[in-house]
């Protein structure tokens, strides 16, 4: 029997495995290192003498009496009020995901079902909008928002993030709805449903996989945003990411870098869980745009 296409010689497998392991190390090590180090004191995490100190933590043991310390977390969450930023982030992210999915499913469905030429132009416009650097848009908002006295509040930021999210959401849900056969809602309409009823009764029950995937990316956009939230929110309404950035300035001088490290690790943790639970959806979402080329 001729050797199959997928049979691989041993050296090739070894080389590939080595390369993959190297990449894994590069991808994961920084996060594991920082997560571990966040339970140490600054003298260990930023050790002048020996980097091994960050692993073993002699200074942590000397200063706090145990090998791990939650001081960084205590300082960040309680002393610096990081918990408030977490609450704000939760509100912003929840609202952005809900609203942008509602708008997006309706719009994406319409774009997928309408055969007119303007759908093409709408999608192209959405593509151009998606490419706009967010900070250029922010420089357009700032002055009008000051004038209208709506600067600094959470609802303003939420609606801005929803809008920035729309081009992407529309593209993704549009290509997802294209994969749902037209017959499904059309037969519902033949049975006497209006378009909205057909959407509600025939399409909504089968659309959840696409909506979950799109929702993940809306979540990431809202959660990871720094540009919009740092410019449009006042000090007391800040979400996590701008809060961490403002820690940097103030804590570096006071020798409290570990607060920032702990806060950064706290903000990373939900993302870890997210990737673990939704790995499959994230992968399918990333490739969804590509399949259509």
């Amino acid at each position: 029997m001729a050797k199959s296409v997928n049979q691989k010689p041993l050296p090739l497998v070894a080389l590939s495995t080595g390369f993959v392991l190297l990449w894994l190390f590069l991808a994961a090590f920084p996060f594991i290192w920082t997560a571990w180090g966040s339970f140490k004191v600054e003298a260990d995490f930023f050790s002048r003498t020996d980097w091994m100190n960050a692993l073993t933590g002699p200074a942590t043991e000397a200063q706090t009496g145990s090998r791990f310390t939650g001081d960084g977390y205590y300082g960040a969450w309680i002393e610096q009020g990081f918990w408030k930023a977490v609450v704000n982030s939760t509100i912003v992210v929840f609202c952005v995901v809900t609203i942008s999915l509602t708008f997006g499913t309706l719009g994406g469905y319409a774009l997928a079902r309408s055969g007119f030429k303007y759908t093409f132009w709408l999608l192209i416009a959405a593509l151009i909008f998606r490419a706009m650097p967010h900070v250029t848009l922010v420089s357009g908002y700032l002055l009008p928002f000051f004038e209208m006295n709506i600067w600094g509040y959470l609802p303003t930021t939420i609606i801005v993030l929803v809008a920035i999210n729309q081009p992407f959401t529309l593209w993704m849900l549009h290509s997802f709805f294209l994969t749902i056969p037209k017959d499904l809602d059309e037969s519902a309409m033949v049975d006497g449903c209006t378009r909205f009823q057909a959407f509600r009764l025939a399409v909504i029950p089968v659309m959840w996989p696409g909506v979950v995937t799109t929702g993940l990316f809306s979540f990431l956009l809202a959660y990871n945003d720094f540009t919009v939230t740092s410019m449009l929110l006042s000090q007391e309404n800040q979400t996590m990411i701008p809060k961490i950035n403002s820690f940097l300035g103030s804590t570096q001088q006071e020798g409290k870098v570990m607060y920032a490290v702990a806060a950064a690790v706290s903000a990373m943790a939900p993302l870890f869980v997210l990737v673990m639970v939704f790995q499959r959806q994230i992968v399918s979402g990333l490739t969804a745009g590509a399949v259509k080329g």
Partner: protein
Amino acid sequence: MPHRTFLAFIWPSLLAMLLFIAVPIVSVAYQSLFVEHQQILSEVESCGPFGCKSEVRVDAAAMAELRAEEPMGRYNGLGTYTNPTHLAFDEVREAWATSGSFGNFIGRVMNLPFYKALIFTLCYTFIVTPLVIVLGFCIAVAVNNVSARLKGPVIFFSLLPMIVTPLIGALVLFWMIDSRGVIGATLQVIFNDPQLSLKASPTLTWVTLFVYGVWHSAPFAFVVFYAGLQTVPQDTLESAMVDGASRWERIKYVTIPYLMPLATFIALMQLMDNFRVFEPIISFSAEANAPSLSYMIYSDLRSGDFPLFGSAAASSVLTIIGVIILLFPVLIRNWREFNRKA
């Protein structure tokens, strides 16, 4: 679907995009024609025990009143675009006239803030994007070769650099390359130079940012290519093998052409994302050596007590023009395809 139903479905989404994406673009263009009010100076006589002296002060009350009346500032036409912090026509012309060599000219232009930011942004975009595609492809091919048991964890850990907030991801690296951090300290040992710091020299800062960019985006290219590799037609691969093609030739003549559309897709996404590089510059505090166009706008909006709206708006318009030039090939291609179909 009739127009009316279409509109009924799409209006919330359309309205949001119109109000918060299209209108701000127009508003930015309009704002860029204005600059801040000139400071109103008033002479104040202050008398102390050693006689009186007159002082020139900024009249804060009058300024506040003027700002309330005309929040946009005063009309400046295209003046902001041509001033030294933007296109700097006078400075460039002068540099062209007085600098002897071309290298000297480039050096002087590089010192103008707008051109410095533009050149960094372009370098970042056009160096990081190809590297991301190449590295992503290599990882995808390698992962495809390893045993199936490794694949799940590989994908999990590979996604992390991309999913984690850019600001935090960059910070994590920044703490590690600190001269007291693990990578910074190790590099000092390797090069036997206790003064070595990745933050000090402009070149090293650029390299660090490029490395961060590739690290952050390679997972995206990897996942897309990996999904593409699963669909490479096995028949073609087999017939290539029957024809005596080696493994490398099969990759070169079958796999790579097959994955080409995916590479175009990744390139498009990466060009858009890399052109607005911003967060890593904040995290690495690299603004002195490596400002980007986005950073320029950010720092204008953050300057002093009162944001420089005019200056930020002019930079924004120039950035938007840059984005459109960047997307132009894609738009042309789409237009042709659309016409072919119609």
